């Protein structure tokens, strides 16, 4: 049986933490909840775990009313974004804790814990104290503890967010490995993240969440190619998709006194005015392009993010090399018009380069 939720709502204060959330999670699949900070990701995971009870709604799992099952009987595992372990126990005891709680035979505990520690690359650390480990190692211990249980539902709440860049890359690779081999046909993995790239890499079904509301559900590819609304486009791209007010006049797109050719996939647009969306990576520096003013240049990893301004519009472009710019420098850029998205004035996708439309 699937994990099915219907219209879960949770509103402890003025704001909805969950707003009519429904989903149908199938066993053997990975689900990624993508949303910004405070979008309700943790609330949703805690509701699945049973740590929170929603105000209204229903949840079923394996033919049981899941909301009536107490947390400790749900057979779930959860990894938090903070590194949560039991400080009074050593690494081995931490991982063994859930099995001991189930009164599993000592011999079996030994085997399972060893196996689990091996899968997260922590062999030889059994007798270490938690406080002696680095953040990445602590997070591996909690991952090992959640894997050892063979839980039916594995919840990962932004497990990589508090790690430094290098560790994050490394652990993300390991996650993918663990998901691809170790995952049984019998379990559901729910992974939450704020990072669209992470969502794309995990490559499961993506649920885009904002202010407690599900904005779009689909494969990572589908969300990337055809974001349903402006909000989704913003959340599912890092840096967020650039949005510009534009209008169509005689086969040209006009915005900020710039005119570009109307690409084929936009030729059927009905409205004159629309929101033009274009990814940072689809804008290039080009001497024959349009002049913008540099507001800020950030170097992140091996790329440079340029925050540019023209008139009332601000855009971000990403350049695949490290370049130095001064504030107020003038740069010329050109737009890859075949990658332009159009959203209508209500913010709903009306045309995408991949052929999607929700109007």
């Amino acid at each position, binding site marked *: 049986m699937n994990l099915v939720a219907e219209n879960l709502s949770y509103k402890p204060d003025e704001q909805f933490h969950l707003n009519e959330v429904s989903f149908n999670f199938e066993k053997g699949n990975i689900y990624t909840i993508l949303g910004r900070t405070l979008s309700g990701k943790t609330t949703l995971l*805690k509701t699945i*775990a*049973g*740590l929170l009870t929603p105000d209204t709604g229903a949840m079923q799992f394996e033919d049981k009313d899941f909301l009536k099952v*107490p*947390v*400790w*009987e*749900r057979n*779930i*595992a*959860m990894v*938090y974004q*903070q590194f*949560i*372990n*039991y*400080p*009074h126990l050593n690494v081995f005891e931490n991982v063994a*804790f*859930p099995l001991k*709680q*189930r009164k599993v035979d000592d011999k079996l505990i030994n085997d399972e814990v060893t196996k689990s520690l091996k899968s997260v690359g922590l062999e030889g650390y059994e007798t270490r104290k938690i*406080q002696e480990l680095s953040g990445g190692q602590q997070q591996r211990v*909690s991952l090992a*503890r959640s894997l050892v*249980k063979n839980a039916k539902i594995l919840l990962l709440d932004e497990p990589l967010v508090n790690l430094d860049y290098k560790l994050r890359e490394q652990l993300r690779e390991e996650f993918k490995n663990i998901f691809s081999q170790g995952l049984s046909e019998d379990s559901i993995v729910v992974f939450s993240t704020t990072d669209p790239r992470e969502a794309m890499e995990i490559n499961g079904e993506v649920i885009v969440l904002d202010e407690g509301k599900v904005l779009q559900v689909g494969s990572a590819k589908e969300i990337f190619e055809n974001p349903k609304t402006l909000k989704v486009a913003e959340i599912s791209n890092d840096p967020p998709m650039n949005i510009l007010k534009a209008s169509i006049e005689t086969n040209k797109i006009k915005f900020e006194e710039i005119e570009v050719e109307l690409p084929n996939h936009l030729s059927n647009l009905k409205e004159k005015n629309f929101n033009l969306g274009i990814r940072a990576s689809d804008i290039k520096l080009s001497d024959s392009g349009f002049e913008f003013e540099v507001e800020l240049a950030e170097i992140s990893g091996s790329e440079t993010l340029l925050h540019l301004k023209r008139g009332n519009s601000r855009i971000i472009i990403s350049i695949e090399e490290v370049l130095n710019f001064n504030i107020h420098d003038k740069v010329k850029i050109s737009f890859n018009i075949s990658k332009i998205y159009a959203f209508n004035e209500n913010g709903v996708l009306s045309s995408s380069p991949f052929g999607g439309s929700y109007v």
Partner: protein
Amino acid sequence: MGKLYKFLKYFFITFWAVFVVAPFLWALTTSFKDFNSVNGGATYIPWVDFEPKLEGWRVLIKSPANGGVDIIEPYFNSLFVTCTASLISIVLGTLSAYALSRFTFKAGFVKNNDITFFFISQRIMPPIVLSIPFFLFLGAINLLDSLIGLIVVYIVLLMPIAVWIMVDFFNKVPREIDETALIDGCNPYQAFFKVVLPNSIPGLIVAGMFCIIFGWIDFFFAFILTFTEVQLLPVKIVALNSSITPWWSLSASALVSVAPLIIVAFIVERYLSKGNLSGAIK
């Protein structure tokens, strides 16, 4: 500048140390004196200044009929009352503190913080304000002048200390640890006893020490609520402080009465210096 600073620093530390230790030194030397040595003025070096005698210490274990000071019974009364009241306060206080730290209570306008304040407010009131209700209350249930009555009163006085320290301590233990324990298959009681409590031992020790100290040194309620049947040590020591009891026996009794606190102080100090208190939870 550096030298002067260092000199002043050590000068004041030494001065303060002497200031604190002097009364103890005075009591310690006096306890080994007899009539002649006491009358010989303030002398501190045994065998040089005065001839040490054990008379002061002997009277502690002598029966009153033989001229003893009779502090053995009050001593054990005090031990019993303090330990029992501290233990019950720690148990109840820890449970209440956990509840106050983790669950949300609401009864009309009364919320968690108000309940915590209610506990602490027991200590804000001057003892004299509480003494009359306590006296009437214990009188009504026939527990005046009894060990049980004193234990009840001390629980009222000590539990706020335990609650206060432990609420603060539990608030610093991440809630996610409890949640993880629940997820790992513990029911709420198991989560508390198997996970939260073992991580709170430093807090428990500090709370316990404070309870013992405040219970042990209380004179006021021990004085008001007992008459003839039961006597606690602080009351007894003060009662000894009369013209009949010689100074050497008085000094010896006083030293014996502070001995448990000195032991407690060393234990706490040891815990503090090991860093067990601050570094327990990151």
